[in-house]
């Protein structure tokens, strides 16, 4: 494969597909987990980890690299899959997800998993952490970015908006938040459970530079992330319209697969659809 600078869009798309296969294998092996929200953001994760972010396992001890916080901690499977593919730990370990004594907890843990920068899982907390990390990078004089992937359902947490206010107040233009706007949460459609729209206007009113993209279109993902990286003076949020369960027909836009593992038959079909071996 090419280096991050040269990797092509089709190679990144293949990477995203590989991450999706990992996700299905991991959650099937674990017997529990959250496939929907991992599949929706697999393209964004692939773009960040295989191209956009400057990072490597050898430099975990240094702050002089790009950083990533997964605020929607339940998307741990796709995060672990990307970390393993980047060499933070062996890919064979992915199948230990959620098992006793595994380094791969149901939700990310900074103290257990190589490459995981912050423990998350209780929603709405990641952006505050990203802000603090961005401040630290500024104090250290490092021109580095902190990417924070949020869920749309967690936008209902008040702390998200406290953090939004803080980042704008301190002009944290090294923070790039991405909202995985798949439109579904456990109890149903976000607009039925707790209306978020007009979401872009909300962020704009809080002082953020707001971008939109189709978060399942690799070209758009790369272009939008590049634009966000170049923005100065205020933090940037990218609202990424995505399909929950993307890539597996019966999981797409199906809230039932927010937090449920596939059964044997479903697993086989999912793997076939993702072009993988069962």
């Amino acid at each position, binding site marked *: 494969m090419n280096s991050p600078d040269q990797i092509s869009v089709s190679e990144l798309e293949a990477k995203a597909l590989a991450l999706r296969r990992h996700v299905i294998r991991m959650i099937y092996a674990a017997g529990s987990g959250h496939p929907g929200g991992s599949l929706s953001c697999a393209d964004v994760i692939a773009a960040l980890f295989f191209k956009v972010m400057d990072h490597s396992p050898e430099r975990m001890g240094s*702050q002089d690299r790009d*950083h990533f*916080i997964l605020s929607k901690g339940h998307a741990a499977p796709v995060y672990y899959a990307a970390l393993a593919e980047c060499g933070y730990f062996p890919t064979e370990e992915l199948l230990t997800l959620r098992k006793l004594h595994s380094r791969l907890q149901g939700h990310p*843990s*900074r*103290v257990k998993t190589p490459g995981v*920068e*912050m*423990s*998350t*899982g*209780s929603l709405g*907390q*990641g*952006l*505050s*952490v*990203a*802000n*603090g*990390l*961005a*401040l*630290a*990078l500024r*104090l*250290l004089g490092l021109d580095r970015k902190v990417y924070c992937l949020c869920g749309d359902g967690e936008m209902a947490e*008040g*702390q998200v908006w*406290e*953090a939004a*206010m*803080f980042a704008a*107040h*301190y002009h944290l233009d090294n923070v790039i938040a991405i909202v995985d706007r798949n439109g579904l949460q456990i109890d149903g459609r976000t607009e039925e459970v707790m209306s978020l729209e007009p979401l872009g206007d909300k962020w704009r009113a809080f002082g953020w530079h707001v971008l939109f993209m189709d978060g399942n279109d690799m070209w758009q993902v790369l272009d939008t992330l590049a634009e966000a990286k170049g923005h100065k003076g205020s933090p940037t949020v990218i609202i990424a319209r995505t399909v929950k369960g993307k890539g597996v027909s019966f999981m797409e836009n199906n809230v039932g697969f927010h937090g449920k593992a596939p059964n044997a038959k479903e697993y086989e079909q999912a793997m076939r659809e993702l072009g993988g071996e069962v």
Partner: protein
Amino acid sequence: MEAQRKSYGRALVDLGRARGDVVVLDADLSSSTRTVEFKGAFPGRFFNCGIAEQNMMGTAAGLAVGGMTVFASTFAVFATGRAYDQVRQSIAYPDLNVKIVASHAGITVGGDGASHQTMEDIALMNALPNMTVVVPADGPETYKAVLAVAERHGPAYVRMGRGDVPVVTSKEERFEIERAHVLREGADVALVGTGQMVAACLLAAEALKARGVSAKVIDLHTIKPLDVEALEKAARECGAVVTAEEHNIVSGVGTLVAAALAERYPVPMERVAMQDVFGQSGESDELMQEYGLTDREVLAAAIKAMERKK
């Protein structure tokens, strides 16, 4: 008499001078918590978070992920109650170098009333794995505690009151987080005080002396890790123990001491604490009397505990 938070302000400035990695956050109470001293000395390393304690704790965690040693301050009721989940999830679980130093703990907040008088903060922080919990007795001990938690890895909670408290320790005395501080040796009863109740224990010990009773006084400044050795030694030496705290009796310091002694060396024990009620407005000293948190109650508890000795 001296306010603990003034010592905190001084300690922060000294720390800031010695260490470039020290960053301080506050939530719109910097003139009360005295983090304003640090802000004046090192404005580039001070960040006001506004009235948003949950975000402050998360931001503190992020700064610590970035390699900083972070002090986050506000009133104790907000630091431990309002932001409990952030402290749990983003600070304690990932074991980050965030030092939560909170002022205005306990009933001595006074006029603000029960909404601001936390009687449960020690219980909340103590229940979190990885957390160090320190409750200094006075100004000099607060100064030393702040330096000590800065040196110690991981999350810490330091509890301070609002008002002036008697000075019962000195600058020169050694302070070790792992070791309870024995202020007075004795053989008949051990008075184990926490925070400003240490001063009440010393007064009670004087009153006991006048009655021919020799009381040992321990300043239990660190609740976690608990110095179980010192407590067992006191129980063996004296055969009766009294605890005194400005905190709820439920899951407070007395509970912890009782549990430790039950396992190690059970002796008759009495606990002076808030009796599982919310406080009210009033002057600090009026409230301490109203809720039975003075040397008189410590004295009465000591006599009761000694009577129960076989």
